[in-house]
Structure formats: structure tokens, C-alpha cells
């Protein structure tokens, strides 16, 4: 039905190129946000007990089970012009819906629970005595986190990041409601496939082929990371 040539030709279309570039940039931005913000949160959740912890954990897991379209509506209610924070944001001259920032927000909202969950269990698996040892050796909380907890949990964090990134790359429902479908601005690869399916099947299939390759790559790297993690340190 579609040959290699069609895929290459499809990739030549501006719609396909814009969509793939946008998806790459926004999903990597979302990944950076979830890693930078999510890692310390996952560390707290994975290594500490505090009152109300299960409530916090549940709140973080909610986007995992929420239908993406509902997540998109929720983001509109929160950040839309007439939303909860709309007034404050307009006062600052910030319009979030239907912008590139909206794409990143939607991706982060939907994908970060995957990363945080994986990172949390990676941190929980770190031997408490390693963290205690770092403290008695003069490292404060931050140095213990950066020099011991993160490197020891690195494989789990890497696997979580790969899964989170893949989820962000595939984000569709929340994005189309909260960010719309504006070529080059908010039309990500999955949205371009949906739109192009009618208007430009070559482009749609070309983008799909790239996403398949990316997903396979992610899956492979997660498997290698998980296996490597078991092998790396050996018995301790």
C-alpha cells in the first residue's frame, strides 16, 4: 500500500516536518520539566513517610487514569481565559491555551505520573543505610540526594524518563482540547496524523512510521536499562 518512497515523500511535506519538529521540541521540554520537578518529589515520596502521603501519591496518580480529554478540559478550566487562574494570568499578559506552552503543559500533566511513579519505586529500592552513610560522612540532604540517591537509582530513573517521554510524544486527547491544532505551533505529530488521515495520507503515514520507530527505540532502551541495572552493581 505504502512504499518506502511514499514515506520519504511524506516526510518532505511541511505539515509532517512541522509536526515532528514540534513534537520533538515540546516532548523534550516536557521531559525536562518532569525530571527536574518530579525527581525531588519522587525522592521524598520514595524515602520518607509523612501524614497524608497516600493522598499526595493518589493525587499524582490521578492523571494516569483520567481520560486524556478530561485532562484537557481540566487544564482549560484551570488555565483558560475564564478559568480559575485565567484572571491572574491575563493580568501578567500570559495566554496559555492554544499556545506551544499549552502543548508542553498538557504533555507534562499526562506523562509525569509515569515518570514519578517509576522514580519513586527506584528511590524506595535504594538501601536506607547508603543514605544514612552519606549523612554520617558529612553530606547534607541535597548532596546525599545528588551524589548517592540519584546515581544509585539511575537505571530506574532512566527507564521512567523513557516511558514518560514516550507518553508525552504520543499525547493526543489533552493536547487537542487544551492546545488545539495549529500547524507549526500546536499541531503535534499524533494530531497531524489524525488531521492528515483525511487531507494528506502520505504525510500521516510518514509521521506514523517515525513514531513507531521512536516507540520501539524507547521500549528497547527501557529493557536494556532495566537489565543493565540488575547487572551493573552486582551483589552489594
Amino acid at each position, binding site marked *: 500500500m505504502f512504499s518506502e518512497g511514499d514515506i520519504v515523500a511524506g516526510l518532505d511535506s511541511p505539515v509532517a516536518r512541522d509536526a515532528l519538529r514540534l513534537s520533538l521540541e515540546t516532548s523534550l521540554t516536557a521531559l525536562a520539566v518532569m525530571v527536574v520537578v518530579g525527581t525531588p518529589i519522587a525522592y521524598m515520596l520514595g524515602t520518607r513517610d509523612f501524614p497524608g502521603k497516600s493522598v499526595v501519591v493518589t493525587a499524582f496518580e490521578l492523571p494516569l487514569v483520567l481520560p486524556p480529554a478530561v485532562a484537557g478540559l481540566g487544564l482549560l478550566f484551570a488555565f483558560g481565559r475564564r478559568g480559575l487562574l485565567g484572571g491572574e494570568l491575563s493580568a501578567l499578559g500570559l495566554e496559555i491555551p492554544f499556545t506551544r506552552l499549552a502543548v508542553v503543559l498538557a504533555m507534562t500533566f499526562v506523562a509525569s505520573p509515569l515518570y514519578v511513579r517509576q522514580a519513586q519505586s527506584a528511590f524506595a529500592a535504594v*538501601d536506607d*543505610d*547508603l543514605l*544514612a*552513610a*552519606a*549523612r*554520617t*560522612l*558529612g*553530606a*547534607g540532604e541535597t548532596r546525599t540526594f545528588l*551524589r*548517592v540517591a540519584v*546515581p*544509585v537509582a*539511575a537505571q530506574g530513573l532512566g527507564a521512567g524518563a523513557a516511558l514518560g517521554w514516550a507518553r508525552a510524544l504520543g499525547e493526543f486527547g489533552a493536547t487537542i482540547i487544551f492546545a488545539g491544532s495549529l500547524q507549526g505551533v500546536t499541531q503535534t505529530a499524533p494530531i497531524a496524523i489524525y488531521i492528515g488521515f483525511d487531507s494528506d495520507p502520505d504525510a500521516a503515514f510518514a509521521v506514523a512510521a517515525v513514531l513507531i520507530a521512536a516507540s520501539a527505540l524507547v521500549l528497547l532502551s527501557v529493557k536494556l536499562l532495566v537489565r543493565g541495572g540488575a547487572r*551493573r*552493581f*552486582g*551483589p*552489594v
Partner: protein
Amino acid sequence: MTRPLRGFTLDVDLEAEGTVAIVGPSGAGKSSLLRLIAGLVRPSAGLVECGGERWFGDGADVPPERRRVGFVFQHYALFPHLSARANVAFGSEGRDVGPLLRRLGIDHLADARPGTLSGGERQRVAVARALARRPRLMLLDEPLSALDPATRGAVAAELAGVLQETGLPALVVTHSFDEAASLSERVLVMERGQIVQDGPAAELLSRPATAFVAEFAGMNRLTGVASGTTVRLDSGVEVRVADPAHGPVAVLVAPWEVSLSPALPEGVSSLNHLQVTVRRVVPLGNRVRVALDGLTAEVTPESAARMELRPGAPVVATWKATASRTVPRA
């Protein structure tokens, strides 16, 4: 200081100089004591001071990273992602760790990851790492328990030497009497969060304060009910003791105070005696350890040979009332 633990409260008042061995049944609060001093666990009340510096109490609560303790964890807790050298250098604040690696004989392992080291090598890396911190106090939590029994004795002697060389106060938690005795002059026994005995190892043998101490030191422990200087053992036999007591007690007798004879000797009135069967005969250097029913005796090889001791042989075990001690039993 005080801290509530599961089932009981840790309540300890202790001053340490030089190496002090801490022993006690598992769950006695030995590790908790070390963690309280290191600041890894917070006491509910009390005082922790080191060299005149207040670490905890009266509003002070110095975080563990500023307490300058050298902590050796039970399973060493070496950082698996760092080489031996980087492990040792972790708390050295930039000082050269080369001399320390050489002193502990691990300089040839400097680039190895902990996962590739043997138990004894890991222990030395852990001790070097703790010392590299320039601690004012060493805390060692069962530093020998992860080693196989064959190497334990040599490593214990080596560790005692290293600790002595540093001149630092050190608290060493251990679970064997031999280890405690080889590591330190002073042995402290903890039970259910309390210090029940504190003295030289020899004193644990000669005057055990509790049944645990006696058993820990290898003493015989016979349970029964006391009425004055007579104790009716659980087996129904009555024995005489030197310390009068009432109620449930344990009678403690050192194995070398127990004499064995083929039959009831003449003039036994002053002696306690039990008719028992030999279970096992184990030569131990210049002594022979004889396991009997619920009792252990130590005799010379000559008398073991003369009596032809062998498993299944009936013997009479005797000891003087003055050689036994009586302790109340919970």
C-alpha cells in the same frame, strides 16, 4: 537518653573512652543506640555530647552531617557506584586518602567497585571511609557479622589494632563473646533497652549479672524455682545455691566448675549433683568440652580419657554451691 522502641524504651546513660564493646540479644536496642548518637534517629529526650560538644539535648539537635562520627554499618553500606577510593574520599573533604588506604592495606583495591570485593576487603574500605571523615567518635554496628567465621578472628584483631591506634572512643556492637573480648577491655551488655552490665570481659564470666550474660559468656543456665538457698530445678532435682532467692530463677554455673565422675562420689552432701548422659565430646585445645543433657562441662583431656567419656555414657555431674550464681528469671 531515652527513645521509645517497639515494645520497650531505650534508656541509656553511658560515657565512653577507648573501645567499648556492646553486646546483647537481637532487638535489645544496640543499633538504635549507635543511630541515636550519630543523629540518624532522634531520641525523645536526653543528652548526646562528644568532647564537650552538645549534639542533642536542651534544644540542640545537630544534624548527622555535622556530628563527625565515623559510622561503620552492619553490611558496610558502601556506595556501589563509586570505586573503593571514591568511597573513602566521600567524606574526606578533599584530603588525600592515599595514606589511609595504605594503612588499611587496600591501596591495591583503590579502583575496584565494592561489588567485586570480598567481605573482609569491604569491611576495611568501610573502616577507612569512616576514618577519612576525621571523626571524633567511631560507631561500628556488627562490623564482623558479614564475614565468614574463618576470617573473623584475624579481622577482629586487626580492627582492634586500628581502633587502638586512632585513640578515638569507639562503640562496637557485636553478637559474640569472643569478638567482644578480643575487641575491647570493656564490655557493655544491653537487654531490652537497658545496660545490664558494664565491665571487663572477665567479669562477665566470673559475675554475670543476668541469665543472658551468663549464657552469652558460655555459662550453664539451669532454670527452677528458688526457696532460700535451695532451688528445685525444672527436672525435679534440688540443688543448693550460695545466694538466697525466692521464685523463678536461673542457676548459673561455669562449665569448668562442673566435675564429672562415673558414679556418685563419696561424701556428696556438700555437692550438687545431676545424673546425666554424655551427648557430645569436643576437644578444645588443652580442654575437652563435654555436652551433657542441658549442661556443659569442661574437663582436662586426661580425665576425659580416664573416664572413657563417649556419647551415651552415664555420668554424674557435680559442682559446689559456692561456684554457682542465682539470678531472677522473668
